[in-house]
């Protein structure tokens, strides 16, 4: 639970901060692709987390 929470906060923080630091003046779809990739990654991790929790209980 704690590890998942830290992971989730890191992902949400990255989704907030990186567009204003790394992707400030991009002129292609890299920011859009970045957001899609971290969202897809987070959904995979979240689904794995809830499935693992489901098996434990």
């Amino acid at each position, binding site marked *: 639970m704690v590890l998942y929470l830290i992971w989730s906060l890191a992902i949400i923080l990255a989704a907030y901060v990186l567009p204003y630091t790394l*992707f400030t003046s991009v002129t292609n779809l890299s*920011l859009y692709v970045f*957001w899609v990739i971290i969202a897809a990654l987070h959904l995979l991790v979240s689904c794995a987390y809830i499935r693992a929790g489901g098996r434990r209980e």
Partner: protein
Amino acid sequence: MSSQLAIPIAALAIYFTIGSLLALASRKLGVGTSRDYFVAGYRLGGFLAAMTYAATTYSAFMMVGLVGLTYMTGVGAFGFELMYLLATVTLLAMLAPRVWGLVRERRWISPAEMLADLYECRVLGIMTATIYLIALIPYTAAQVIGIGVTVQGLGGGSEGAYLAGIILAFTVIVLWIYLGGMWSVAATDAFQGVWMVAAAIGFILWLFTWGFGDPAKLSSALSLLGKEGLLSVGRPWTPMIFASYTIPWLFFAATNPQVVQRLYMPRDRRALIRMVTLFAVFGLTYTVIVTFIGLMGRSLTALGELPVIKDRDAVTPTILSYAPVWLSATVFVSIVAAAVSTADSIILTLASSTARDLYGGVRREVSDKSIMLAGRLTVFALAAVAVGVAVMRPAFIVELSVLSSVMLLPLAPVTLAGLYLHGRLGKYSKSTSLAALLTGFAIALTHALVVGARRALIIPVVGMPYPAVVLLISTIIMLTGIVADLKTRR
């Protein structure tokens, strides 16, 4: 009758007929008790649970508002919607198993009842149910207005078509809830969710082939958008505005009763896991498609193939005016479906809360039959109020609809503390939960009244985004009670 009018009317008729047949069929699954009527007897399968969660969450805002917002402001709009999805999936992964497990022991029906039970405070349930009503009636009315405007667009812009749309909305909402309660809402939500995604996929495929037959054309159009600054965050998405718009939605899964209640319903743990997984896939797919439609529309404007569209809500209708009539009819019906699925879910949840927590909270001995009757009457009354607001369109109420999640934000610390610390909460937490809710709600409403609902999100309070102030103050108040209780116990 011309095909321009006949095909959309036929599409609406197909939608209404299939939905009504599903609602009628779902009645056989049982609506004898208030548990059946409001939470489907906790017996929903994974697919139905996922689709009703998704269709309830994603309103007409997606295909109209978000397409327009992306067209106007670029990639930042995608980030805004994605922050909601990231936070919701996180909350679902952590909260859903806990809420679902507690519901099996405590047999809650409404989310206000859940808070009243966790804090052992009947007044908290009554106060929460009242805040739900104030915050969500404008939002529900906005969905009815959306249906009226969509049908008005199909009917050539006449006021009669707008009223016909509102009558259609009232009929569909009341009929589909009446026939089978949550069973028919879930079944029709599943049907509407499939229609929404299918229409969105059809829309983007058509737009791509019609507008960008040659992939090189898309590439050059995107470079034009890049030069306009629409592929990065900048104006209007300053960090302050971005935070202000996203914070209310980060806690949506814990604060909005219509989605909290859906965590009660999966029939077993497997169905719950399936619900979260399918919802996550639905959410990401739909968000990507809808925002890409907005970006492609803007690209076509940059290439001079679409006119410059100045009204955000006119972007989808303008693009669709170039599409084959069957496709535009399918997409327009998907907008109606998105609005109906959100509105009927909210109304049924508000009815459960009004019947259980307001009516049942004030009168101590109430039979299940009276709760059912109160619920049914409340459904009718709430739908009538939403229609009344939609007919009169009072500016402030309509504008207030965008602030529903800010007004519900004080429920976030109260709900999270209740779920994670129940059993360790005492009299101080009970008092501060009431204070946190009242203070946060008062700040949210006062700021909207002072600066105007439309400008509330863009005007900071003490240098901070306004939703952050609401959240921070209610969290601090809640924490003082928790700390006092923990100290007293020690």
